[in-house]
């Protein structure tokens, strides 16, 4: 199957720090790829380069056949990529409903009525039917992140990018967000998930990618990667995160 995301040899430096050091990664349509690795390994930078929240220095990125580069039509690319952020980044001055309906109106050109109908459906799907008229500050972290997921879904993107979606949550709210993401995974949408939740990675992923120092060190099906890690760095990482 053709890769919907095709990353070839991308590099990115922040000052003297080499965040990405030649990363190749192909993601097939419908695939769930979970990216793990120690902090500073380049996982977040990698997915932030795909929708150009960070500009990569070298290499090429292709999303559904469109080259992602300076001067490209980023709007066309970004509408195909839904992003869910670690810190939610909901719009605090807009109601939950408006948060979800805004981009379909402004970018896809839907009417407010159609966009709000779509938003209601999505909010119901993530279990927030009773909260649509509230403002983000009135919701718990877990609820806010589910709004964030609904907002990304409202654009009907081909790929969903999750940047540590549960890292800012209180522990008791991690489950409700992971449940939603796992349900999405079953719908056949392509997903790239940066996370520290190894249990989720094992259950939901088709493929787990381990990054360290700006490179992909090892990748494979979750069972192989977690049960028979070959690289020493991956073994150390798994020991560190799974030992307690």
């Amino acid at each position: 199957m053709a890769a919907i995301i095709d990353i070839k040899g991308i590099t990115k430096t922040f000052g003297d720090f080499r965040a990405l050091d030649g990363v190749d990664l192909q993601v097939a349509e419908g695939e769930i790829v979970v990216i793990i690795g120690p902090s500073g390994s380049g996982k977040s930078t990698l997915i932030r380069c795909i929708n150009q929240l960070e500009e990569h220095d070298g290499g090429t990125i292709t999303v559904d056949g469109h080259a992602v580069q300076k001067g490209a039509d980023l709007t066309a690319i970004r509408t195909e990529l839904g992003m869910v952020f670690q810190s939610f980044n909901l719009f605090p001055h807009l109601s939950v409903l408006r948060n979800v309906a805004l981009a379909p109106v402004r970018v896809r050109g839907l009417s407010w009525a159609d966009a709000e109908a779509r938003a209601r459906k999505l909010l119901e799907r993530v279990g927030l039917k009773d909260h649509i008229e509230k403002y983000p500050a009135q919701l718990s972290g877990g609820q806010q992140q589910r709004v964030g997921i609904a907002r990304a879904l409202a654009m009907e993107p081909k790929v969903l990018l999750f940047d540590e979606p549960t890292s800012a949550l209180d522990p008791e709210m991690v489950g409700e967000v992971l449940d939603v993401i796992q349900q999405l995974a079953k719908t056949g949408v392509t997903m790239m998930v940066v996370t520290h939740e190894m249990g989720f990675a094992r259950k939901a992923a088709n493929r787990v990618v381990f990054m360290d120092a700006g490179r992909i060190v090892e990748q494979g099906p979750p069972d192989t990667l977690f049960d028979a890690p070959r690289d020493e760095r991956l073994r150390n990482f798994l020991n560190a995160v799974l030992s307690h």
Partner: protein
Amino acid sequence: MSFFDAFLNWDVFVQTLPLLVSGLTITISLGLCAIILGLAGGLLLALLRLYGPAPLRQIAIAYIDIFRAIPLLVLLVVIYYALPFAGLRLTPFTSATMALSFVSAAYSAEIFRAGIEGVPKGQFEAARALGLSAYRRMSDIILPQAVKLVIPPITSNSINVFKDTALASVVAMPDLLKQATQAQALSANPTPLISAALIYIALLLPLVRLVGIFERRLAAKGR
């Protein structure tokens, strides 16, 4: 002559009231024009300074610096008394509106810039990630939040602009202060001046209070 006869003379007050009211109308129109134009210009300058192409950005910075450095009274006198020599003869009202709004725009620009920069980075990123155009990112996401942040300093600045309208009396503008001085001369009594001072205070005191309330509300939200 008693204190009341001298400073709070009722007959003089009633006699000169029409003059004061005509001055007040001009002061209010001048204040509103200058405040609105200053805010619009300030927002434009802030956006140019932050996001404009390099040459425009430099021009915006130069403008903001120069118009914060020049004394308002000097600018007003230059516009009204010097420009005619360049063939540009402006009415007192136009001159005063220009001077006030030019300077106010420079201060407002810095306030708006601080507001835009005060919006969390994640808001810009979420707006970009959704594919919103640069215009929509500003109009729908960033500016509504930035403006809310700067309501106290913007109100404060507007109060200053309103107070500075009194400088227009220097260019023969029949504003509240000018009319009060006139009335004092006519009636040989300072009551009109006292009345004018009280009118300024009555107009602006509630706004000054409001700034305090806005600031406390914002501080409470920040916690």
